[in-house]
């Protein structure tokens, strides 16, 4: 085992900074400094329910009904059981859709119809927790922005300037896992 300098890694932060300066490589500082619970959902993380009767349970596709109101979910590191609940920016809304009706370019981000979007509105950062079950749109209770979950989270109403970020998913051993980092920027946009 290599000597641990107390920074949590085998290479010191200072060394990495020096490497970055010398080589011009972007150093992944957040990965070193952030506690795992604050880190965005990582490749291979399991998705778990964050509310409702099944809170804390790992999500399987059959636990979600077609076009049901999206429910709050979080990623969990399967190795350490760390729930990534250290930042509200990690929260997603998850549901299940008929992907044959979905815009084709976004289908790869779904798995067995399960689809997840960032819960954070791109307008002013509120939680997008409302649901229009007639139009199948996610809606923000703060300022009525609406997002088309069949079209990549496109804004279809209200003041939001950008689509909701999608979290690509996959099914492994029957469980819903994170397949890649968020597609799109999570959160609101600082003006000016």
């Amino acid at each position, binding site marked *: 085992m290599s000597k641990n300098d107390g920074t949590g890694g085998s290479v010191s932060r200072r060394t990495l900074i020096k490497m970055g300066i010398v080589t011009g490589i972007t150093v992944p500082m957040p990965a070193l400094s952030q506690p795992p619970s604050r880190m965005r959902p990582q490749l291979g993380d399991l998705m778990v329910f964050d509310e409702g009767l099944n809170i804390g349970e790992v999500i399987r596709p059959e636990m979600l009904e077609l076009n049901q109101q999206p429910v709050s979910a979080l990623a969990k590191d399967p190795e350490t059981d760390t729930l990534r609940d250290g930042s*509200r920016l990690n929260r997603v809304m998850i549901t299940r859709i008929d992907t044959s009706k979905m815009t084709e370019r976004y289908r790869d981000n779904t798995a067995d119809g399960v689809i997840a979007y960032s819960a954070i509105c791109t307008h002013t950062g*509120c939680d997008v927790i409302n649901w229009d079950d007639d139009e199948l749109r996610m809606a923000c209770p703060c300022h009525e922005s609406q997002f088309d979950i069949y079209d990549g989270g496109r804004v279809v109403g209200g003041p939001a300037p950008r689509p909701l970020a999608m979290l690509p998913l996959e099914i492994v051993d029957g469980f819903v896992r994170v397949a890649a980092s968020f597609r799109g920027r999570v959160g*609101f946009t600082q003006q*000016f």
Partner: protein
Amino acid sequence: MLSLMKKIVLGSGLLLWTSASFAQSLPPYNPVTQERLLNPEESNWLMYRGTYDAHGYSTLDQINIENVDELEMVWSFSTGLREGHQAPPIVNDGYMYVSTPQNHIIALNARTGDLIWRYVRFLPDDLQQLHPTNRGVALYEDRVYLATVDAYLVSLDALTGDVIWEQAVEDYYNGYYMTMAPLIADGKVMVGVSGGELGIRGFVAAYDAVSGEQAWKTYTIPAPGEPGSESWPGDSWQTGGVPVWVTGSYDPELNLSYWGTGNGGPWMGDTRPGDNLYATSVLALDVSTGELEGYHQYHWNDSWDWDEVSAPLLIDFQRNGQTVNGMIHPGRNGYLWFLERDANSIGFVDANPYVYQDVFTSLDPVTGRPEYDMSKKPGTGYEATFCPSLWGGKDWPPAAFSPKTRLLYIPANDNVCSIMIGEEIEYRPGRQFVGRGPSENGGFMIRPGTNHIGELQAWNVDTGERVWTTTFPDQNWGPVLATAGDLVFMGGTNDRYFRAFNANTGDVLWEQRVNSGVNGVPVSYTLDGKQYIAVQAGWGVDAEREQNLLNLVRGESHTVPQGGTIWVFALSD
């Protein structure tokens, strides 16, 4: 050019631009002493409503009913920001300070509109802004004070914009934020917190204006064992809301500040059975100690989202041949409240509806406590329709009072109602804690057979009677300025007009269409004897939300362009 514009990056990540050349053309900064706050010169607008009594009244009369039609734009300044521009331009001997959404402060030469400096606050990525706005800065000595949406109080150098200190008031991550202009008196900077939809426990806190140290903190919900705690069941007091998000008024003789409080949370009253003191009330807080010296609860166990956050206007009025040391509050609950104030109590005088209100069936003649038509009170699993809407007869836009006409000018909304049903909700820190379920048309309804929504009303405070009403087809979100020129200035409508009204009749005497809807608080000031009217345009927040719902129920798509601009008007030379 580097010689003209300095860009400074501070350690805290805040950006600041200064323009030394413009600053040099200004007079030396005149410190805002306590004496000046007590008796502001008519040439300046030193605080949110101009004076501690919250009248929103200017004694200037150079611009008056005879010449207001000659009013012209002198200069304008684009803020470069979207959302709700609600703050008044605060003016001190040629220096103007304007706060904006996203917590910028723009310091300008009030004569020319030249930028002196700009404070830009970097807001955290994980912040949620339910109300993306700010309602103004406060001035004291040689400093400017800002209450931020990430729940900090910031003290800046008025001449340079340098941050002197910033003080965390609460943790935004738990749902606390601030949008109000601070109130400064007795060397203390007082602020209240927003977050009634996010499970906060509201409070007003005071900070030493020089050091930033907290002087006192008074919660709006009593803890167990404190008087009033019996009106909250179980642990509901810990997350019961009752925010304070509009600047208080102040009586220097009593040394009491008066604060309006918001509704309890979650929204449905049946989740917190009891009166829920001191929600939907006015509180009298001793400025030296923060002690609660009196209160009046306008209505109990709110289920309608009727925040009563507007501070009362301190007005002595006549009743039954006697002068009442009084205060007046056009309530969000649709009643116009006349109260009496003294050193250790707030008394009820009388109250009557000023818009259509179908919830209260009667008021106790002694205490003013209302009785309800319970069929109009939504609850968990029980849908009710009620008027006025959740935005009330008047929301936050301040009313104004002219001592000259003895009229109170109320920016009102009539004939709109809400449909609301409650649903169960679990408290999670920092998350929405409202408990409102879906209703048809977003829960919004226009009363059948009515022909307008927005109103500007004038009430004689001595007779308690309405004198005139000017109506607008759609909603009115316009703060009001009254002047000794027998004028009332107000924007607030979705047609983007800023208007001057005859204070005695309500007739429109002048109007100017501007870039966006005018949600800002208008002010007046003079420079070298010339009177100016200044206001921010910049549509957003609830004015926009109501527009979305109007469009929904009407099947229309009327949009009001966003974008902040400071407008300054004067008579042509």
